[in-house]
Structures are given as C-alpha cells and as structure tokens.
C-alpha cells in the first residue's frame, strides 16, 4: 500500500445541492403555491360578482317581504319571499325524511354492519353519492309522477332532495359515530344496558354536535339544487304554502325563470336571488361551525 492518500478515498458524503435540483425544487414550490392561488381566483371573483350585482335587489325594501305576484317583468318592485319559503320548506321536508333514515343506516353500518350486506350498503351509499341530481329528479318523476300518478309538487322535489341528502348524512354520521370511543360503549354494557339503549342514550348523544353540523352542511348542499325543481315542480310568482299541491317557487327556479326576462329588472332579480341563496347557505355554514365549536366542547 504505497499510499498516495492526499485525498479521501471516498467522495465527500455531503454534496451541496446542485443548481438544477435547486431550480427544480423552486419551480415545484412555485407551481404548488400558484395552484392554490389559481383556485382562489374564481372563488373571490364569483363572490365579489354576486355581491356587487346582487346587492341592489337584496337591499330593496320589498325584497324579503313581498312576492312577485302581479309584478310586471320590467317593474322594479316585488320580492322573493315566496321563493325563499319554497327553498326552505323543500329542504326542510327533505331533511325530515332523510335524517332519520340516514342516521339509522349509519348506525347499522357502524354498530352492526359486518359481512356482505354491510359491504353492499357502503358501496350503494358511494354510488348514491355520485348520482347526478338530474337523474335523481328523473327517477322521482318516473316513480312518483309517471307511475304512481301524483301531480308535480314541492313534495316531489323534496323526495328527489332526499336521495341527494341521504349519502351525505350517512357518511357524516358514520364518521361521527366512529369517533365515539369504545370505552363509552363498554362502560354502558358493563352497567347491563342493552345495545340499542347504549346507542340511543350514549353513542348518538355523544356524536350529536358533529351530526347536526353535518346535517346543516347537507342542507346547504341541496338548497342550491336546480335540476329537481326544473323537473318536478312548476314555477309560481306568488306564495304557495302547500308543499303537496300546486306550483311553488324556489330561489334556483326563480333565477332560471327570470333568466329569460330581457328587462333590466330581470337581471337584478337573477343576481339578487343568487345573493340571497348564497347568504342562506353562508348562514347554514356558520351555524354548522357554531354547533361544532360550542357544543362539542361540553361533551366527551
């Protein structure tokens, strides 16, 4: 070994990062951050547009208290309370029907579901979540109106909304029930309390705030649905309190109807109704956040 070891045998372990690798890293960082910014542009643009174009109508004195009954297309008068009522009642009926069903299905999947039938159920929940709203509406049309012979009504819309709400409620409730620690269930069983009572008195109450906020978000999701109202109910310019009979307006249906109104008042109503819809949805989101934040803290 006539060593000429004036330099290390092994190359130094720590190379400085080469310029090209640094460059690639910087490009990647920029692109990732830019994609987030790109997503925020339409959101901000859209909200600013709706606010700017909708504020005139929404702040007019009759907007929240009047309907459009007897108001001429070009007249700058009237309001949309008939459509707000329609949107709220249709969503409320959908909630009354889908919440118990969805919660029980989630209870089945989390507390009982083992084996093949449970697997098929989760699969079908996923499929139902992917069913387009127009297909749900068409199905209700084929079943409720074309086969069973009922008239078009707000209730038919609610039935279609049930199909759209169900998977959201099931999934969210499932998540919340899974968060309930098993110790709570076991403690209850140890006291000799049957399983069903444990679920009703211990598991569900513990998960309740999360379930409620999920339901509020699901409601917000279905309120903006337009396809079901187009297929399943006629538009009305005046108030109709009866969800089981007659035409009924809703905010999406009012927007769609006023779109073909060429007058300036039509555009004002369109954007005003869009802003009203967004305000209602924002209120539901705030409600959900509130429930999550203040009710969860007292539990568990």
């Amino acid at each position, binding site marked *: 070994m006539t060593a000429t070891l004036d330099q290390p045998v092994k190359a130094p372990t720590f190379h400085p990062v080469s310029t090209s690798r640094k460059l690639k890293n910087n490009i990647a960082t920029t692109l*990732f951050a830019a994609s987030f910014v790109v997503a925020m542009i339409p959101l901000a643009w859209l909200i600013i547009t*709706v606010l700017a174009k909708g504020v005139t109508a929404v702040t007019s004195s009759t907007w929240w208290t009047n309907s459009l009954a007897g108001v001429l297309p070009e007249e700058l008068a009237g309001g949309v309370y008939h459509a707000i009522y329609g949107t709220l009642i249709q969503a409320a009926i959908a909630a009354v029907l889908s919440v118990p069903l969805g919660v029980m299905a989630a209870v089945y999947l989390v507390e*009982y579901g083992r084996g093949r039938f449970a697997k098929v159920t989760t699969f*079908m929940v996923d499929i139902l979540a*992917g069913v*387009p709203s127009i297909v749900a509406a068409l199905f209700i*049309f084929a079943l409720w109106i074309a086969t069973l012979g009922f008239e078009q009504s707000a209730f038919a819309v609610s039935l279609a909304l049930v199909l759209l709400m*169900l998977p959201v409620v099931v999934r969210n409730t499932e998540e919340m029930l899974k968060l309930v620690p098993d110790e709570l269930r076991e403690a209850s069983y140890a006291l000799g309390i049957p399983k069903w009572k444990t679920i009703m008195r211990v598991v569900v109450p513990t998960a309740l705030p999360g379930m409620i906020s999920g339901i509020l978000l699901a409601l917000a999701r279905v309120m903006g649905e337009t396809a079901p109202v187009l297929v399943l109910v006629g538009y009305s310019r005046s108030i109709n309190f009866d969800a089981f009979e007659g035409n009924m307006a809703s905010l999406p249906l009012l927007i769609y109807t006023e779109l073909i109104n060429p007058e300036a008042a039509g555009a004002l109503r369109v*954007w005003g109704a869009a802003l009203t819809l967004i305000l209602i*949805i924002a209120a539901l989101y705030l409600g959900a956040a509130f429930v999550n934040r203040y009710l969860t803290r007292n539990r568990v």
Partner: protein
Amino acid sequence: MKRGEGQWGDTVFKSIAVAAGATIIGAIALMGLFLIIKAIPSLQANHANFLTSTEFLTSDADNLRFGIRDLFMVTVLSSVFALVIAVPIAIGIAAFLTNYAPKRLARPFGMLVDLLAAVPSIVFGLWGIFVLAPWLTPVATLLNDNLGWFFLFSQGNVSLAGGGTIFTAGIVLAVMILPIITSVTREVFALTPRGHVEAAQALGATKWEVIRMTVFPYGRSGMIAASMLGLGRALGETIAILIILRTAAQAGHWSLFDGGYTFASKIASAAAEFSSPLPTGAYIAAGFVLFALTFVVNALARAAAGGRVSGG
C-alpha cells in the same frame, strides 16, 4: 332491567337499522329499474338509432327520432376537458396544503377550497356565462385562429362570440370539480408514511424530490380515485352547463368550440314538456345512460381507492 326486555328492544332496533341500510340499496335498484321501465316503450317507438343518431326530435310522439351520439360527445368532451384542467391544479393544491402550507394555515386554506363546493351550480352557471365567458372569448379566438387545424380547436357549430361553448363550460366545470378532487387527494397525501418521507430526506432529497419519491407514488391510487369522482361530478352537472352552452343547429365534431347539450342539460331543457309518456321516455332513456355512466365511473373510483372513497 330484565334480560328479555333488552333483547327484544335490541332485535327491533337492529331490524330498523338494517331496514334503513336496505332502503339505500333499494333506492339504487329502483332507480335503475324505473328508468328502464319508462324508457323501453320510447326506445321501441324510436325511428332513429339510439346510439348513433345525432337527432333528438321528440315533438311528434308518432315519429320519435332520438339518439345520444351528440349528447355523448358534448358530455364526454366537456367533462374530460374539465378533468385535464382540474386534476393538475388539484394535485398542486393538495401537495401545497399537506407539505408546504404552515400547519396553522393548512386547515383554513383547505376550508377555502371546500367553499367552492358550497356555491350552488346555478350561480356558477351565471358567473360562467355572464362574467367569465367574455374574458375567455379572446383566448378562444386566439386558439381557434392559430391552432384551428387541430380538431379540438377547429371552428365549432356555435359562434365564438358570447362564449357559449364547451370551452367555457369545461373551464367552469373544472372549477366546480376542483374541491372534490382536492379533498380526496389531500386526504391520501396526508397519509404518506412518515418513514418514507424521512428516508427520502435522509438521502438528501430536496422537498420536491421527497414529494416525487414518496408522496406521489403512495398517493397514486388515491389521485386516480379522486379524478374519477371528479369525472362523475362533471358528467352529471346540469344547470351550469344548461345556462352556458348555446344550442347548435348541427351536430358537433369534437371541437371545444362546439355547443349543444350534455345528457343532463338536454333532460333539464325539456323538463317543462314532460307531459306525454313517449317523448318523456326518450329523455328518461338518456337519463338511464347517464345513470349507467356515472355508476361505472363511481364504481371505478371505489375500485381504484381499494374500498371507500369519501369526498363529501
């Protein structure tokens, strides 16, 4: 508490829970069944080929002529175009939120992206045609002038002015499906095993190399599933497309500057005329094709993810 009492309650309660689960399965089964039942008489009375005809004439119940070729073209082209735009951006956002954004900001940033999903689709439609479309018209004209030889950018069957084209619709769809693709992708990226990341870091990888070597390979099936879910949403989107796309006199030829109808917007456009059974059945037949299409796409998403895909 007597033992028997509890067992009796348990049996009833469990039955109710199972029935609720069965209702969901039943709903899907009935959906397929009723759409088929109502479509068959119209399909039998159809004088055109259902799969290859570009006509959709239902005004004369004695001479129904309807086919889904043009609907299929518009639906697939707009959805795939939306996907091509949305997927890279969604992956970028997911990578940004899981690996770059400060921990304190990652959650609020993620919620901002989710807010896009809260906007009703009819509002997206209004914004798309009245606000976005005028901005896109110069871009569309530029593409059409310079790349018109390529079929995607060739002269379409509607006017470029006004922007009622698949080009505009696809971009709006991309914005609409962004949140679902982002949220599913983000979930998977966040699950990348710590060990993989640290191993890459120990080898001296830069942040980008860490992501390329650990996060992307680990999240690949998740990204595919997310894209499928996004595609499913885009295929079924109704009202935004109905508002944006202009009616075309002729059938399209796979150009982004075509107009026309998707399955969903065609059905919605005729909703007011659903009175006599035979013409209505034609639309129900189109609805069944859409149902089958989204069923397959969503089932594929599930298969790709190897089980459940959330993405509310």
